[in-house]
């Protein structure tokens, strides 16, 4: 079966010469929930717009359900659902009128009542869009993206602006869709959202995918950290050489892919030498650290990727 989404060497350069997407390749098999993570300006929305077929890529190819979403719009649109980062509904229409407008443009549209019920907007039919809260507008947008029972659903920051309950409801909805076989590609800057929803994720930075895989793989690619402070009279140079410690004025950080072994060695050394380790903290890598690590490299634009990162992209 053709993958739901397949992008090869995708680039998008804006008219001013700014390259928002700089050579992205990704494949999303059918039935998978795929999350695109990244800081603001990383190129998530520019990428999603290419996948949705709203714009043509400067270079590279996109296939959605086997078709070019830009050139073969008519073949792709009836089978996908899209929720943009910012809604786009006339503020003077009521909820019911908006659903009716969208239903007229949608093949196999579900009944309005059912669609609104699925996002918890029952009873708001006669309210004008401009009088809805930000969260309600997001949910209306979601209801319309789902109106044609899409095979592939694109959600650009679906939970931004939602309260905790709305966010959890949306997550439940995405899980229910996944259980029904829908492929979902979502962007988010909430790490827990990607971690709890996505089968696979990719972290974007400056128009490129710098890390990708299952949430577990992505975190496993990151080193764990051990942090502590040494007494003033113990220089960091006395630490066992094998521990690759970085000393910053008595505050020591060890990054390691073998947390248990290195922590054991550190503790053995501390007991043998009678050293008190202050504020000792050891933690395995988390998605958040992977993310922050990438974000902190914002200035190092020309840093080549390490082999481990290179491998993760493949």
């Amino acid at each position: 079966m053709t993958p739901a989404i397949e992008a090869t060497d995708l680039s998008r350069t804006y008219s001013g010469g700014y390259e928002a997407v700089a050579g992205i390749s990704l494949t999303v098999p059918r039935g998978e929930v795929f999350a695109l993570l990244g800081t603001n300006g990383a190129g998530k929305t520019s990428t999603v717009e290419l996948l949705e077929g709203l714009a043509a890529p400067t270079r590279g190819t996109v296939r959605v359900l086997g078709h070019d979403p830009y050139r073969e719009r008519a073949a792709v649109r009836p089978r996908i659902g899209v929720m943009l980062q910012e809604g786009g509904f006339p503020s003077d229409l009521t909820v019911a009128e908006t659903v009716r407008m969208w239903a007229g443009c949608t093949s196999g549209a579900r009944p309005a009542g059912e669609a609104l019920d699925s996002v918890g907007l029952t009873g708001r039919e006669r309210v004008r869009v401009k009088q809805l809260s930000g969260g309600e507008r997001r949910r209306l947008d979601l209801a319309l993206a789902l109106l044609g029972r899409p095979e592939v659903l694109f959600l650009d920051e679906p939970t931004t602006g939602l309260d905790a309950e709305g966010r959890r409801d949306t997550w439940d909805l995405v899980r229910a869709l996944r259980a029904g076989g829908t492929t979902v590609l979502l962007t988010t800057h909430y790490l827990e959202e990607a971690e709890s929803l996505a089968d696979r994720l990719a972290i974007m930075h400056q128009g490129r995918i710098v890390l990708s895989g299952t949430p577990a793989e992505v975190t496993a690619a990151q080193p764990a950290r051990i942090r502590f402070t040494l007494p003033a009279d113990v220089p960091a140079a006395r630490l066992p050489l094998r521990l690759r410690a970085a000393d910053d004025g008595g505050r020591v950080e060890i990054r390691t892919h073998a947390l248990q072994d290195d922590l054991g060695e550190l503790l053995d050394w501390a007991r043998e030498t009678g050293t008190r380790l202050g504020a000792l903290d050891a933690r395995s890598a988390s998605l958040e650290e992977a993310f922050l690590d990438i974000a902190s490299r914002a200035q190092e634009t020309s840093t080549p990727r390490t082999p481990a990162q290179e491998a993760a992209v493949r």
Partner: protein
Amino acid sequence: MTTTTVSRDTGADGRPSTTRTRLAALARAELTLLGRNRNALFIAAVMPLLMVVLLRSSLRGLDPKVLAIGAGPATLVGGTGMILLVVVYMSLTSSLVARREELVLKRLRTGEASDTEILVGAALPAAAISLAQCAVLVAAGVTALGADAPARPDLLLLGLVAAVVLLAGLGALTTTITRTVESAGLTTLPLFLVSSFGSGLFVPRETLPGLAADLSELLPLSGVMEFVRAGWLGTAHAGNLLTAALHTVAWGVVTGWAVRRRFRWEPRR
């Protein structure tokens, strides 16, 4: 919130959307919006009437020898052009800008409607309203202004339809230089003024000095106005009409091409 209702197995209710259902849905939404926007409603419903009244009083003051066709018929010909300009061109420009700035156009493009359908759907209410007002003008002309009924209704109708299509295209094109709904009043002014004086709306073209009259023939609306005039007055020469038709088609093609190339579907950021 019942997430259990989400499933992809399409029931028997799943009708495919067609050009007809899409245009109907888009036009209906646009009409509802027009009814809820006081400014847009004023422009579409009241302004043409005011223009026609104004036109009549200004034409009455003209020397009948200059005017050549009498104030009544001149009002009808000019009034028709005025309705088309105000209702189709000006109001469509501002409503398209409003939809673009609210990201409605961008959102619609994520759905099944084609680009053409989105634009046509948005233009349908204005087109229908302008044609209805022209019908009212015909009735008013015959009853109140003492004019004859249109001599060649077929030519009049042809001219009206062509004018609506051309003006809708020009309206779409004008959105490319219009950043906000408020500025639409300004950006639509040049074509409005040039057409009023150059295409025989306020002032019949015969009253223009030689060179201006020649140049005015090149304006976008001059061709369709030739048809409108021929439709009302029956003063048609086959040669003139052929030139006018070619002229209109040429403007239509250039406008359509420019809209395809230049139209912006989302706000400038």
